[in-house]
């Protein structure tokens, strides 16, 4: 106790005697140690993340590339899915994603425009909507699948059948349309959040410039705000597409088929999709060894598609942002 207490006041005295400039610029050992520890530990964490990604990608590429060919991309599965390709699944995904975008993006963008441009910012309702959107993003995707089955297939679809098809089952069963709509609901938060973010980034100066020229609020939104935010909106759209391409649970009950000998014929057809196909190949194959290379190649294609979409999002955002960069 007493030995420790001894030097402490002396130390303090010495420090007090230094000029204030000296004291400000001295970098203590503990400061340096803290920085080094943080740099090393955060660096290691980053390395771990990259390593995991590298292992996954390497494994998929190594096992999947052997089977990859034009034929694989253009043929239907054959012989109980132990041979052939995934053409119907690719077509099914493209159709589903296209319909999903068509249905979801306009609603999402419109919601974001309402929330950011028109809704009173401080009102309870606006806050409630924001919370609802955030919660929608947190709902497990299987719940969306069940919602789609209950609402779209059994309620809307069956209702349409009763009204227009005399009770014959046309829309009252899992179908491309219902899967796309379910997926649109699932990806709504992505679109809304990205669009609102983009609208928030539009400089106030540009809005004021438009309004000061006698533009109405609507004209300002259409001609200045939305074009300026288009990069962010497009990014949100592509992210939604990439999410939609990978999800399985929401389409499980609403439209995805285990196997189809033909391509979807219309909105009421079922369809195949790579993500669900992966599940089917991995769990339902009669011959595991024969299916394995096909499984890996399907995964490779799926990962590549998602990767390309994400890269596209980055490129589009960078390009439009450069064009619209405001300031000097």
């Amino acid at each position, binding site marked *: 106790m007493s030995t420790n207490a001894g030097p402490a006041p002396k130390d303090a005295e010495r420090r007090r005697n230094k000029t204030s400039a000296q004291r400000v610029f001295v970098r203590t050992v503990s400061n340096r140690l803290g920085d080094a520890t943080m740099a090393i530990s955060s660096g290691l964490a980053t390395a771990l993340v990259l390593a995991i990604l590298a292992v996954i990608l390497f494994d998929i590429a190594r096992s999947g590339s052997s089977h990859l060919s034009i034929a694989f991309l253009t043929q239907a599965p054959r012989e109980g899915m132990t041979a052939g390709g995934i053409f119907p699944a690719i077509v099914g995904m493209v159709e589903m994603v296209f319909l999903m975008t068509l249905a979801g993006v306009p609603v999402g963008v419109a919601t974001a425009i309402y929330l950011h441009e028109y809704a009173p*910012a401080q009102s309870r309702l606006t806050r409630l909507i924001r919370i609802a959107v955030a919660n929608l993003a947190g709902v497990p995707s299987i719940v969306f699948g069940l919602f789609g089955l209950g609402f779209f297939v059994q309620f809307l679809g069956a209702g349409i059948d009763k009204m227009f098809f005399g009770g014959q089952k046309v829309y009252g069963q899992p179908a491309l349309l219902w899967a796309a709509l379910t997926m649109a609901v699932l990806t709504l938060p992505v679109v809304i959040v990205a669009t609102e973010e983009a609208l928030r980034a539009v*400089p106030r100066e540009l809005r*004021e410039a438009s*309004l*000061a*020229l006698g*533009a109405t609020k609507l004209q300002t939104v259409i*001609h200045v705000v939305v074009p300026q935010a288009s990069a962010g909106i497009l990014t949100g759209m592509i992210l939604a597409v990439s999410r939609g391409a990978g999800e399985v649970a929401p389409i499980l009950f609403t439209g995805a088929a285990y196997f189809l000998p033909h391509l979807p014929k219309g909105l009421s057809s079922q369809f195949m999709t790579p993500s669900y196909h992966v599940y089917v190949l991995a769990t339902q194959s009669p011959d595991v060894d024969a299916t394995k290379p096909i499984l890996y190649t399907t995964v490779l294609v799926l990962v590549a598609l998602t990767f390309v979409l994400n890269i596209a999002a980055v490129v589009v955002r960078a390009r439009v942002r450069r064009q619209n960069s405001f300031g*000097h």
Partner: protein
Amino acid sequence: MSSAPAQNATPATKLTVRELCVYYGEKKGVGPVTMDVAEKHVTAFIGPSGCGKSTFLRALNRMNELIPTCHMTGEVKLDGEAIYGPGVDPVTVRRRIGMVFQRSNPFPKSIIENVAYGLRIGGLKDEREIAMRVERALQQAALWDEVKDRLEDNALGLSGGQQQRLCIARALAVEPEVLLMDEPASALDPIATAHIEELINEISTDYTIAIVTHNMQQAARVADYTAFFYMGELVEFDRTDVLFTKPSNQRTEDYITGRFG
């Protein structure tokens, strides 16, 4: 040059301001201000930062309404017509009272589309008429010769001074009756500033101009009338030559002689 208005004839009043107060929430930003802005003359608002001159300027074409917490009392009349009157659409007010901002803010569009913007949203469809008025506006803003060969280029490629003149051209294209300018040259170098000042002198024969500036020399050079604001109050308002040579208020004198500010 225009700092010596007609000595005898009193010019017509374009804007009549009576007891105008602008508040941000509970806090008063500026006021009460009472003044008459002379038609087809330049009126400058000077004063130290935060004195309320910009807030006052923005109240003259209802731009303050874009700030949610902002509200005001008092009266502003354009040709005797209350711009804050019941049923008056701020859009129509802003068509007649244009504005140029401190920071040039061209749209990320071509030069020609920037100037044509106000015309198009105003419903003008005739492309020949639009082209004609774009050219006239660019000429008025002394920018035509520099950009006539690259009207389709993006406006963001212009220099800072050119961008600001483009913004002036854009405001002039819709032919407002009054042009409000909020420190239009504060971000520009001396040469670009001289261009803007020259241009203000040129257009003041056709337009009523109100300009906010923190540069007293600028006010002395361009303005026929000058108002001195301090701590949210209008301290003194007079002909520019009178205000700068024989100020009647001690605070005005202290400010223009550089004792504070």
